[in-house]
């Protein structure tokens, strides 16, 4: 993407029907450190790479608990992610207060998407520069959604966003058909393997990654460092290859699963990344 005369503000269309500012916001997501999500019938696992600006500082928080049954991992401008998490928490609390039941995940992502869309149609605002992987459980089962800065959202069996996420996506594309019936432990194992793919040679330890789980009978929580390290050691995945696949998956465009809302395969450096 190069600079052009139609990219100064978000309320200017290009002659080809594109909003460049929104596309630039999606670029910000691609620059952030990787975040991965996978789901089975009963659990959702979110994982992300920890990036610290220097050895002296602590790493950025990229996984947020939104409610007992929903959590989110982000890639991109983490400050935008923090603010959106606060919005999501408030929505969950208010829904719980009024209806005395947990907010269905599908409703939350629509509200989030509508909020993002507003910023694509106001001259005095800018789009949020963060992609969110929303994982949660409700009456209709386990769900994983991806919300973009464009205001679109998609439901997934498994997905990865951020820098070097294509490596993780390739791994997930091979394995995703087994995820629905996967056990909790295997799901976490697959998350760690996928995460390792994005590290491209760097050592996978509990200090370079964060894992969070939500499932049936299990509230959303971030696994503590010791648990993660022992899982890594147990799976002995530092340097080892992931287990062989049972079912070979014909190479398709993506791992998107058709759902009730507007869906589509996640396009890569497509002509119109916002379109469905």
């Amino acid at each position: 993407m190069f600079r052009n005369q139609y990219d100064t503000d978000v309320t200017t269309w290009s002659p080809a029907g594109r909003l460049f500012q929104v596309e630039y916001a999606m670029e910000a997501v691609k620059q952030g450190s990787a975040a991965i999500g996978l789901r089975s019938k009963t659990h959702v696992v979110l994982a992300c790479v920890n990036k610290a600006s220097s050895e002296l500082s602590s790493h950025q928080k990229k996984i947020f608990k939104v409610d007992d049954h929903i959590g989110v991992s982000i890639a991109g401008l983490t400050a935008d992610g923090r603010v959106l998490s606060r919005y999501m928490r408030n929505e969950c609390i208010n829904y719980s207060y009024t209806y005395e039941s947990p907010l269905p995940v599908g409703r939350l992502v629509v509200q989030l998407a509508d909020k993002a869309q507003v910023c694509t149609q106001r001259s005095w605002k800018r789009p949020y520069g963060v992609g969110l992987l929303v994982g949660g459980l409700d009456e209709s089962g386990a769900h994983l959604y991806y919300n973009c800065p464009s205001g679109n959202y998609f439901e997934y069996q498994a997905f990865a966003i951020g820098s070097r996420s294509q490596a993780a996506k390739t791994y997930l594309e091979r394995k995703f058909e087994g995820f629905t019936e996967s056990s909790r432990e295997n799901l976490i194992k697959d998350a760690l393997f996928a995460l390792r793919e994005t590290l491209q040679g760097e050592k996978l330890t509990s200090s370079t990654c964060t894992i969070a789980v939500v499932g049936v009978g299990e509230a959303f929580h971030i696994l503590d460092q010791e648990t993660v390290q022992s899982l890594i050691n147990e799976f002995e995945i530092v340097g080892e290859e992931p287990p062989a696949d049972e079912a070979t998956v014909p190479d398709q465009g993506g791992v998107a699963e058709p759902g009730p809302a507007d869906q589509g395969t996640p396009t890569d450096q497509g002509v119109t990344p916002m379109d469905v």
Partner: protein
Amino acid sequence: MTKQQANWSPYDNNGGTCVAIAGADYCVIAADTRMSTGYSILSRDYSKIFQLADKSLMASSGFQADVRALQKVLAARHLVSYLSFIYQHQHNKQMSCPAMAQLLSNTLYYKRFFPYYAFNVLGGLDSEGKGCVFTYDAVGSYERVGYSSQGSGATLITPFLDNQLKSPSPLLLPAKDAVTPLSESEAIDLVKTCFASASERDIYTGDKLEIVILNASGIRREYLELRKD
């Protein structure tokens, strides 16, 4: 011509009594389960005790619709600060009882000019694990005490507790102890005695007694049948 007075009141009193006693490493919170209006009984099995956080329980008598609304508002306000707290500090720590006490006070005063008709007793463990009891009026004035009673039977129970618990009594100035030296089982027996006596004289107290005991090993409930007349 005299001024027209309102003959509709937004409030009602559903009766009932609440008691809480703080010990060295436990807290006992008790309330009867009778809900009434006027001279009628609405329910013989309605709980007035609500858990606000890990280590905080609230028992409230008065107008139960306002009590229920207050419980919901507190639960939501606790969640707002709890979730941002775990964001900042990454500990799964809930609000301490003294912090919850301040939150309850602020929530009540927020409605200073249309109060919650709720008379509350907050009980729990402080950050050192010692029992704590806070007692409130309808608009949020509160104080940490060693024991307290609120509701229709409070006038019968409070003098009895002053006599039996002696040392934490606020009538001895300065109070000798912040908590009662009684053991957990002695405190529970005392509470049962209080309610058995109060049910004899107070028509709004009776049916069943719900006792919640909070200590280091967690939370426990006991029930006792009371007079049903």
